[in-house]
């Protein structure tokens, strides 16, 4: 049975330490509730941008782990980011792809290729240091510490069901500019 995205997020919240997290689309509402005070920024309104934002943060702050919560439909929108990330080789970047085979936010239309799309093969082909798939929550929990410490760039394809909420059914949260400002303040620490 596919993992529940909320269960995956709860496990990450418990283990993430000082990692900077970047949710996008359907992981955003749940992450807001699970980790309300997190060092994170949510990518909604520029679908596909989470991976590159993670890259920028990872390059800026090599002392911090950066964890991107990407979606399969989102990653397809900027698939070239796999090569860009692999080219830059950020050792501190973990790229989690929540794979459900549909554009959940816009009404669950199937993504091109549906569940057949193999992001593990794509990431390996692009040049990620590691890429693998996880299908069971127990296995995810077991491998999570390594996901947060192994040298990146590292992609994990997570076989999940649909989240309970989407950005369309659960609007809210800080406006994007305030999220950006808040994260910068936490990272740069103005005097």
């Amino acid at each position, binding site marked *: 049975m596919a993992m529940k995205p909320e269960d995956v997020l709860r496990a990450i919240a418990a283990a993430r330490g000082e990692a900077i997290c970047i949710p996008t689309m359907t992981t955003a509402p749940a992450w807001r509730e699970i980790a309300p005070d997190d060092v994170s*920024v949510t*990518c909604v*309104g*520029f679908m*596909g*941008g989470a*991976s*590159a*934002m*993670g*890259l*920028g*943060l*990872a*390059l*800026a*702050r*090599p*002392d911090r782990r950066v964890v991107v919560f990407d979606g399969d439909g989102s990653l397809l929108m*900027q698939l*070239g*980011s796999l*090569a*860009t990330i692999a*080219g*830059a080789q950020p050792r501190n970047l973990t790229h989690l792809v929540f794979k459900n085979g549909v554009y959940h936010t816009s009404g669950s239309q199937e993504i091109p290729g549906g569940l057949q799309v193999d992001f593990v093969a794509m990431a390996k082909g692009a040049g990620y240091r590691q890429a693998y798939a996880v299908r069971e929550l127990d296995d995810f929990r077991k491998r999570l510490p390594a996901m947060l410490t192994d040298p990146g760039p590292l992609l994990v394809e997570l076989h999940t069901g649909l989240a309970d909420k989407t950005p369309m059914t659960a609007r809210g949260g800080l*406006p*994007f*500019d305030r*999220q*950006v*400002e808040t*994260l*910068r303040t936490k*990272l*740069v*620490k*103005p*005097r």
Partner: protein
Amino acid sequence: MAYDMLDLLTGGNRMPESIPAPLIIDTLKDTFREARQALAAEAQEPSRHQHLGWVLSVPDTHQKSVLAALDKEQALRVVTCATEDEATTAAAGLWMGGEPCVLMIQHAGLYASINTLRGVALDGRVPVFYMIGLLSREKDKAPRESRHSMVRYCEPLLDTFGVPHARLEGPNDVHLIPEYYRLAQKRRGPAAVLVGLETL
């Protein structure tokens, strides 16, 4: 002095000139040096990097001599991106982490990434600084009068989105690079300089 003003004063007889790559690179280094000093004064967290700043590039024919020279440059780190969307969003990540950067792209890439400019740089109030090459711009025409749509629409598009911009029409205009970099920081939003002719 901006091209349009000089154009006015000289009755339109000023012809644009190509800018040597080393001059652009030295100006970028000075710009980033100043940015790092400003950040050091503002922030408690020190930079984790020895180099001065980042160049996010989707290779641009117009600025290829600059990109070639950057290959040998240690003080500026180049990240080649597959798309301008990625470059814009990565720039936001770098800025949140306290790092100075510039995007080197061409006008066609600006058109391709306009939703990201809107969603990230404008809505997120991120000071993304662009150097945009006007590939195919005719030497004897203002870009708005170009017969090439990719040249002609660039400045109007930036105007539509309220992005301040200026043209580098020769070596005397490189002062616009730090000025527009600072302007982006001050306004907390995107700003651009347009590279009028292919760099040397």
